[in-house]
């Protein structure tokens, strides 16, 4: 059971866990990324492509499903404006085997940074606003997966 979503609304992590868990697989791994309020950040805005962002996530989910034996996979990315503490991304993978669930989550979060059409803009309390530049480290982590 694969669930992929790109949504402007709040990600309800508890509800997604409950929906995902239905199968009762032996091992579930997850990653939750939240907006950090560092340096006085007041808003994070994520720009996205109305079609290609979702199809990019679906392609990544499909690739994870091909690489590892997964019973269930949830991959949800928020877009638009959000406040510090709010959830940007949720990755949740279940498998009979812990190594597969953990590897799938790590693969997905790494590749999300470099392969999916999403762009972050940070706004700070003093009025500054800037688009986030891609970091070299993100590419290094994503490239580990070949």
């Amino acid at each position, binding site marked *: 059971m694969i669930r992929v979503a790109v949504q402007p609304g709040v990600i309800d992590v508890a509800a997604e866990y409950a929906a995902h868990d239905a199968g009762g697989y032996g091992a579930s791994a997850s990653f939750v*990324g939240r907006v950090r309020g560092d340096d006085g950040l007041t808003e994070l805005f*994520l*720009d*996205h*492509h109305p*079609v*290609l962002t979702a*199809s990019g996530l679906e392609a990544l989910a499909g690739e994870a499903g091909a690489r590892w034996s997964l019973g269930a996979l949830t991959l949800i*990315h928020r877009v638009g404006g959000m406040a510090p503490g709010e959830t*940007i*991304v949720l990755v949740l993978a279940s498998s009979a085997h812990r190594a597969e669930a953990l590897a799938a989550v790590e693969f997905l*979060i*790494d590749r*999300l*940074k*470099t*392969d*999916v*059409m*999403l*762009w*972050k*803009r940070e706004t700070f309390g003093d009025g500054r606003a800037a*688009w*986030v*530049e*891609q970091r070299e480290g*993100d590419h290094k982590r994503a490239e580990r997966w070949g």
Partner: protein
Amino acid sequence: MSLKLSYFAWVRERMGTGEESVTLPDDVRTVADLILWLAARDDAGARAFAEPMRIRAAVDGHMAGPGAVVPRSGEVALFPPVTGG
């Protein structure tokens, strides 16, 4: 025939719009040609495409390098390197 261009992140901001339809001159054949054409077209284009090396493109939903052929209709998306996750 017209081509849909869509812009994202600071390319969108500098262009002042998220998308437009254009009819390309015959000599604009590749993604690199398209970027140079937009940069020369007006002030907004000059600001958005001053640094072509920082621009990525997707043609009809697939990532495309500077040498990729631009179709006469369909969609070309132009944007900075992605920063999701």
